[in-house]
């Protein structure tokens, strides 16, 4: 049965994880993500799961990967500096194709920065933080309710594509309590297990969708897992053809399913001649600014990606085709604006509303941006 509760984003994240089947959490305390760990430690024992506080974020990600290989859905949560430390094993999880969920409650950076201030400074690190060519699936909720929905979705995508999925939100969403309707149950996707005999099993032989079936350690399949470039038997190889094939398959797993993975909210765009591109908490401000602007006769709209990576190229291009200008509002000094420019291909004017001073971008600021442009246009 659905129920309405007043909870923080971090609590919603933990509740969603357990509802999605998460049974392992390994983490390390760091502001402003710690609330997730503090909820998981209370929820997991009752759900038959395990919680462990590791010695650092590197170890947290390693433990998560170990648990996932043992058959558990597993998660960790962190912020800024901890996210940097996790990059090593995010790459490992991509290479070894270990499903897992990483939540990064963004705070001001670089370095220790502003631990209690909101930021959107990690959106590029979420894409390119670990070394080498790799796919990335990154989701960005803008409310406590959406934290719940997208955390469930993160687990489902991770299991379906055997890849790490990152949930990115900021300190405001993490700490603010909001009324949310919690669903009585959620749709859950589980990893596909092999249907061949152990003697015939090759751990990296992909099924039709490019994703290899995955048994757990202890299931009776004995196999090797490595972060080295490997062949379909999972064993290290230095063969260039096999290397190329693996790299292509790892990336195509995501690239070939962009339509399935990408989610975008279009708000009042149908007749808009100016659009705000915003995500996460800024999407809330943008929505309100658009509503207020409409009452003033300004034809404003908003495009808000719920999936940051893969980037919604097609959806952004469609908006660029239509509007005279697109205002990219983000709480950093310009990270996704480059992607918007690339996807727009010069079809509209791109304007940045960028802020990295630890303060949120407010509805009034974006409204001013819209009204000023409107004045100038007259």
């Amino acid at each position, binding site marked *: 049965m659905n129920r*309405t*509760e*007043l909870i923080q984003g971090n609590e919603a994240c933990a509740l969603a994880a357990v509802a999605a089947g998460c049974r392992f959490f390994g983490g390390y305390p760091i*502001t*402003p993500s710690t609330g997730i760990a503090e909820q998981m430690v209370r929820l997991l024992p009752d759900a038959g799961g395990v919680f462990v506080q590791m010695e650092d974020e590197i170890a947290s990600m390693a433990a998560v990967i170990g648990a996932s290989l043992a058959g558990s859905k597993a998660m960790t949560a962190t912020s800024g500096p901890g996210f940097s430390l996790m990059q090593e094993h995010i790459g490992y999880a991509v290479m070894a194709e270990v499903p897992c969920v990483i939540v990064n409650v963004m705070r001001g950076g670089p370095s220790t920065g502003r*631990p*209690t201030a909101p930021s959107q400074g990690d959106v590029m690190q979420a894409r390119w933080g670990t070394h080498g060519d790799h796919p990335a699936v990154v989701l960005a909720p803008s*409310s406590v309710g959406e934290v719940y929905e997208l955390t469930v979705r993160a687990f489902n995508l991770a299991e379906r594509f055997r890849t790490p999925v990152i949930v990115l939100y900021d*300190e*405001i*969403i993490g*700490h*603010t*309590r*909001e*009324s949310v309707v919690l669903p009585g149950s959620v749709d859950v996707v589980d990893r596909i297990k092999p249907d061949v005999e152990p003697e015939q099993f090759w751990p990296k032989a992909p099924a039709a969708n490019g994703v290899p079936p995955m048994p757990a350690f202890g299931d009776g399949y004995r196999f090797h897992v490595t972060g080295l470039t490997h062949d379909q038997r999972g064993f290290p190889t230095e063969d260039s053809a096999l290397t190329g094939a693996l790299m292509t398959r790892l990336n195509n797993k995501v690239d070939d399913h962009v339509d399935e993975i990408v989610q975008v909210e279009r708000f009042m765009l149908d007749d808009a001649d100016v659009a705000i591109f915003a995500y996460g*908490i800024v999407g*809330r*401000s943008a*929505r*309100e600014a658009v*509503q207020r602007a409409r009452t003033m006769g300004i034809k404003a709209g908003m495009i808000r990606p719920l999936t940051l990576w893969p980037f919604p190229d097609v959806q952004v291009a469609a908006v660029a085709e239509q509007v005279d200008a697109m205002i990219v509002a983000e709480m950093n000094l310009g990270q996704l604006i480059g992607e918007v420019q690339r996807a727009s291909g010069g079809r509209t004017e791109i304007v940045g509303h960028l802020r990295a001073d630890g303060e*949120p971008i*407010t*509805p*009034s600021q974006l409204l001013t941006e819209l009204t000023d442009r409107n004045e100038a246009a007259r």
Partner: protein
Amino acid sequence: MSRNEIRIAGAGGQGVVTAGRILAEAAILCGRAATHSQAYGPQARGGASRSDVVIDTEAIGFPLADEVDLLVILNSDAYLRYQPELGERGHLIIDGDCAPEHLSRHLCDSNVTKYPVVEKARLLSGGQLVAGIVALGVVQAFANVVDTEALREAVATGVPARHKELNLKALEAGMQLVGGVRA
């Protein structure tokens, strides 16, 4: 849209965070949408503390306080830090013990009211822990933002069971403060 922004600010240990959370819970009990946010900092105890509640009949857009409609201030330090977001048409409720030198300019205004919130809390509990709940009573009697019954229920379930009676008393006392003043 009928968006209402309420901020309760004071010192750590005055229970302002709990009070804000309870107000938001009460709003949900009344079928409204609500958000609650608080100031975070590296200090776990002491210092200035604030609790912001946004209540709306519709889904809430921006979840933080932008232009505060009703600001409750329980000490001078909190006044200095958390007054700037008070909206142009907002109202300030201030504790009777607040040092007058910081406030004199505003005390002349018609949109400022003074109540002995902290003193009432001391009388009830011997300390300041229920000051936030007394303030909540003041907010309710003053602005009537949620159903009083829902607020009582939210207080009863929102504090540790052993402190329930004391907090319910504090809520009533806060409401009476306003009744007394208005009479």
